């Protein structure tokens, strides 16, 4: 009984950490641009595919070498996607085209993975040895995913508060027009924000590949769970995502354990609707002050 609870909690938190990373990557882009990238989940899965093709069954040295490559590759890809997404927004009248363009990019990536790799889930070798918590064997990648979440949380915190580039990106979130008036290169900063989000999900996808579903249809599910995590925590709050992500993960694991794996997504959906109905600003979010 105890070990059951332990498995649910540990694995839930670990899987939830991945949702939390996606949620944080939402936050940085949303803060700088107002956009939520629907393709973020597929980008994470792409990171997993990089692990499968370039670093599966290799030695630790090559594996470590491939990690930054995965991060940078996805960062470049998302920066390009961001550039495309921001193009039509230049006109100013067309403010919701990003929903369409990010959804279509997500569909394109999913379809390309399906065409080239088929509908199967690929398994990637664990690089970190498994360990025991109170006698329960736990794959090392679970610890890794919690570690990646913590790493990115603190890395973002330092970046956004203590570097010039990070402060400039934070300024966009405060007031886009003022930032532009102050001479900040807004468009370039927005693309940097996209790239950072790519760095996050690229490295995360690479590192946690052994415990995520590396398959063409998984991306949408990750992006949705990431969204639930960001809504639970409150959009814009990275601290909130560290509550939201693990919560979604534990709820999903509990449902999988008690009812069945095919009800996990339903549980996330119900959680999302409940939060939106009763606390739309999220656990740590604040209601906005001025509407007109």
């Amino acid at each position, binding site marked *: 009984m105890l070990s059951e609870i332990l498995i649910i909690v540990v694995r839930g938190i670990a899987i939830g950490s991945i949702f939390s990373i996606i949620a944080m990557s939402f936050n940085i882009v949303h803060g700088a641009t107002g956009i939520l990238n*629907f393709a973020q989940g597929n980008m994470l899965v792409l990171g997993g595919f990089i692990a499968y093709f370039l670093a599966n069954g290799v030695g630790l040295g090559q594996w470590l070498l491939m990690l930054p490559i995965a991060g940078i590759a996805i960062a470049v890809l998302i920066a390009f996607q961001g550039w495309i997404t921001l193009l039509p927004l230049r006109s100013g009248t067309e403010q919701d085209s990003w929903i369409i363009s990010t959804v279509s*990019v997500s*569909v394109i990536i999913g379809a390309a993975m399906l065409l080239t790799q088929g509908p199967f889930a690929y398994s990637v070798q664990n690089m970190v040895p498994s360990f025991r918590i109170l006698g329960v064997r736990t794959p090392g990648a679970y610890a890794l995913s919690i570690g990646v979440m913590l790493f990115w949380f603190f890395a973002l915190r330092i970046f956004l508060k203590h570097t010039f580039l990070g402060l400039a990106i934070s300024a966009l979130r405060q007031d886009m027009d003022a930032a532009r008036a102050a001479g900040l290169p807004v468009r370039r900063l927005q693309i940097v924000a996209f790239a950072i989000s790519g760095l996050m999900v690229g490295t995360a996808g690479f590192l946690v590949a052994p415990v995520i579903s590396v398959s063409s249809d998984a991306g949408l599910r990750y992006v949705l769970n990431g969204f639930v995590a960001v809504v639970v925590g409150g959009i814009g709050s990275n601290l909130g995502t560290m509550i939201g992500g693990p919560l979604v993960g534990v709820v999903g694991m509990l449902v999988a354990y008690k009812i069945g794996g095919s009800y996990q*997504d339903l549980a996330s959906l119900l959680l999302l609707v409940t939060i939106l109905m009763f606390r739309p600003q999220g656990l740590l979010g604040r209601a906005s002050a*001025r*509407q007109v």
Partner: protein
Amino acid sequence: MTTDKTMTMTDTAADTGRKPRFSSDLPQVWIGMALIAITGFGPSLIGNSYWSHTFQLVNIYIAAAIFQNFLFVDAGQKSFGQGVLLGLGAYVTAIFFGLHEYTFLAAAGIGLFAAALGGLLFALPALRVQYFHLGFVTLSAAIVFPQLLMSLDHWTNGINGISVAVPALTQDGFLGISPLTFIVAVFPMIALWLHYGIRRSRLGRRMRVAAISPEGARALGIKPGYMRFIAFLIAAVGTGICGILYLPAVAFVSPQGFNVELSFIFFFAVVVGGRGQILGPVVGIWIVYILPNIALAQFVDYRLLIYGFLTLFTVMAFPDGIVGTIERRRFQRGISGRGEQAFRVDNFLEAMKGEDATEPSTDVVVEVRGGTKAFGAVVAVDSVDLKVHRGEIHGLIGANGSGKTSLLNVLSGMSRLDAGEVRIKGRDVTRFPADRIANLGVGRTFQTPRIYPQLSLWDNLRVGLDARREAVSDEIDDLAEALQGQFADDSADLLSHGQRRLVEVMRTVLKESDIILFDEPAAGLSSGERENFARLVHFLSRRMGKTVILVEHDLDLVWGIADVITVMDQGAIVASGEPETVSKDPAVQHMFLGEARA
């Protein structure tokens, strides 16, 4: 598109002969009907059963895309889950008809009920939130739905699906056209007319206003959440019927048939065809569905990739979609700016009958007692007491950040006091939402005028008329008629800032608000426009007896027209009274750079 052009020309010729019609919605309905009729009946007439069968499904998808278009643009709801509603209609009907041997009609009734229920579930979060949240909720639903169909195999037959046959509907009838072929061709036609009809109705206009500017809508007494709710319900019922028709057309349902791809088809078809264009879904489904599935059948595995690229390309290269791009060309060809003449109100108002010079009375119509509103640590409105009398022009002045607009937002219900109370016409409205306050006869303008370029200039004014709760008075009726005659086919998009302001003012006049709140109305107006505006405010108060509360930085303007002036500083009222008294108040003097006022 030659049909389009000729139809437009004949229609405008009947009108004035000079302006192109603002909207080509009606010609688009006719073209859409013609296209659906040709593809719906043509194959059966020449006896081609392959095409006949194919277009049955295409026409069902067209109808579903029409409802998606309505929901997407007219109601502003980006739903990625319309396939779920179609699936609910189809699956529930299949379960009761195929597995439990209900009659088709009874099963279809239950299926429709299930689809409507599904729509209500979508709409529930829509009451609270909007924008991308709903996109994620509906996309989740689209992913969860086929999973549920699989897991609930006790009811749904799981992966094996359900086969049905409805021979009564599919047997060839008159001219080789089966009842089903007839129904699935007529249904999208009805959907086109329904979309057109809603758009021209009061409900449709109010829905569109709520979609474009929720706070602008609330100032007109509209509840945006309620509008979204209605829209979801309409779309769900329409899409549910599509699901019911899907069943005899395909004769089989399985979970794979209702995965997220189906929802994407409808969404992408609307974007590619042209968002908001009545004809858009017809063209969109032809391209998005027919192209990869039929015309390029050897590449059918690539269809998702094709949808994705087509849609991305459309958003990048011609965001208005195919029909939208053609429509824009048509409209721009006939367009000519009318400069200063584009929108004036003086002659309309002067033509109005009405008694002369009413003076402000002593009744208090707006009252704030001890009103306090804080945002975090900032106290924007600090224990304010304010009284405004009927028919009075009340100027509210003060430096930036002194709490004027915050107070105005409290009065119009856009934000709520933390302490104290607001009374309007003697009623305690402290906890009223903005739409209820608007319905008490309060109208307001915004710092950035709320102008809806998707609506014609006349419809921009007419939403004021739509906001009325009582019957139209003769006076306003005449005014409305004159405005309609003049502006029915004008675009509101070309108006200058000052003209946009006047449109907002005219809207509150048509609404017959008797209390009008102006939020920095003179900002961005030229000096000539300011003079006109001052005359207009005077007219509203003295001739029409309206109470005016005016937040403004232009002190000359305020001193020229206000009966009473209230000065705010750091959230509190520092002086209030007649202009001469206020200008002598030492607390106010420093505001005028040492310059004395009289």
